[in-house]
């Protein structure tokens, strides 16, 4: 009996020694990559939005998961042979300061909404800061907003 108790104590000690290794390797996978407000926006989209979202990978997957709507990027890249081009276009959509260029990309994919979170975005080619100022013109209008994300659609005249 004494040896069994010692054996259990040794195993528990091994477990305690292993916990820092677990923390080091596993915790990065548990870090949040979207904002709480984005989840609220995706819940809004579930009831009010139908169509393709122009969003980064993490915002796009949030929309897929909570609203069951497709995103231009995000999910399994192998699902679409055009994935690299779509990532490149999405990257450009976020980066460009030209409303005309943004609208061109929008219409290329017949998108319905665009997703602008208050954080850097990742469309497949690195973390970038989105230029949202281009969305303030007459071509686009906000359909949902909270402090952490804005969702746009094309204006009826656009």
């Amino acid at each position: 009996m004494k040896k069994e108790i010692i054996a259990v104590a040794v195993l528990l000690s091994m477990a305690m020694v292993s916990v820092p290794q677990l923390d080091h390797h596993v915790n990065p996978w548990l870090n949040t990559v979207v904002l709480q407000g984005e989840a609220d926006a995706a819940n809004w989209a579930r009831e009010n939005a139908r169509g393709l979202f122009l969003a980064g990978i993490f915002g796009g997957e949030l929309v897929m998961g909570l609203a069951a709507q497709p995103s231009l990027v995000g999910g399994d890249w192998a699902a679409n042979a055009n994935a690299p081009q779509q990532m490149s276009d999405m990257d450009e959509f976020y980066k460009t300061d030209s409303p005309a260029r943004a609208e061109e990309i929008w219409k290329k994919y017949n998108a319905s909404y665009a997703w602008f979170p208050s954080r850097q975005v990742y469309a497949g080619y690195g973390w970038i800061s989105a230029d949202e100022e281009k969305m303030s013109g007459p071509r686009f209008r906000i359909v949902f907003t909270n402090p952490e994300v804005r969702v746009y659609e094309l204006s009826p005249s656009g």
Partner: protein
Amino acid sequence: MYHTGIIRIITETGFMPVYDLSYGGLTKSFYVPSYRLFTAAVSSLSGTDPVVSAGLMVVALGVVSVCAIYLLGKEFGGSWAGACAAMLFVLSPELTIYTIRPFPEVLGIPLLLLALYFLKKNDWGMVVLASVLTALTHQTSAAVLGSVLLLYTMVRRDKKAAAALLSMAAAYSLWQLFTLNSLDILGMRQIALKESGAITLMHVERIGLFALLAAPIGAAKAIKKRHWLLGAITVATLVLSKNELLGIGIFTDRLFTFFALAVVLLGGIGLAEIGRLWRDAK
């Protein structure tokens, strides 16, 4: 999350969508259905949102995985080996990373372990059932299980393993034919474009310190006891993890997770052996 999107569509419409939501949503889905159907069923029956169900399933299936590795380890080395293997599973960063996310692998891993357990128990029906379910749950888990069964069949001429392997192949082929109208598995984009990541020392470290230390002792014991099935698991998963050496070069980092399973099993046997020697020491 994109799996959860499909699960949501299933719960809302009662049908599995033909097209995936990924990258524009215009391509037919190549995923096998069981994980999504199972989670959708749990969501519908419990009345919980698919996101919540998917999260709860991660917890539940994690428990199943731990129990399954205990059962399999017990078959190879007794109850202490099973318990140690279960502990090493929980302490393995590699296995934790791939069992804490809501995707098909969280169901594929326990099904694979159970299929191997039933093979060791000589239960024909359950081996075939678990193998077919694995094939319809997660293609990578199925590739691993199929490789283990193939190797075991070649070495031991085991009819159950052969039957399970053929059943898996038939089930997967029928599903792919039904959904994609094609049996061209090699044409799948991940295979054609060789989706893969290099195995580094970081991956090896992620197996777990004590599993790595105890596995050589477990391997020596397994060889001495002629545990052919465990040998097939170890060799098959090691070869799959380094399949670039065979000129294939696909999914090496994903397949390495299953080699971690083999090391954890060996480590469990090794720790049990250390304990036995210490207990019997005068």
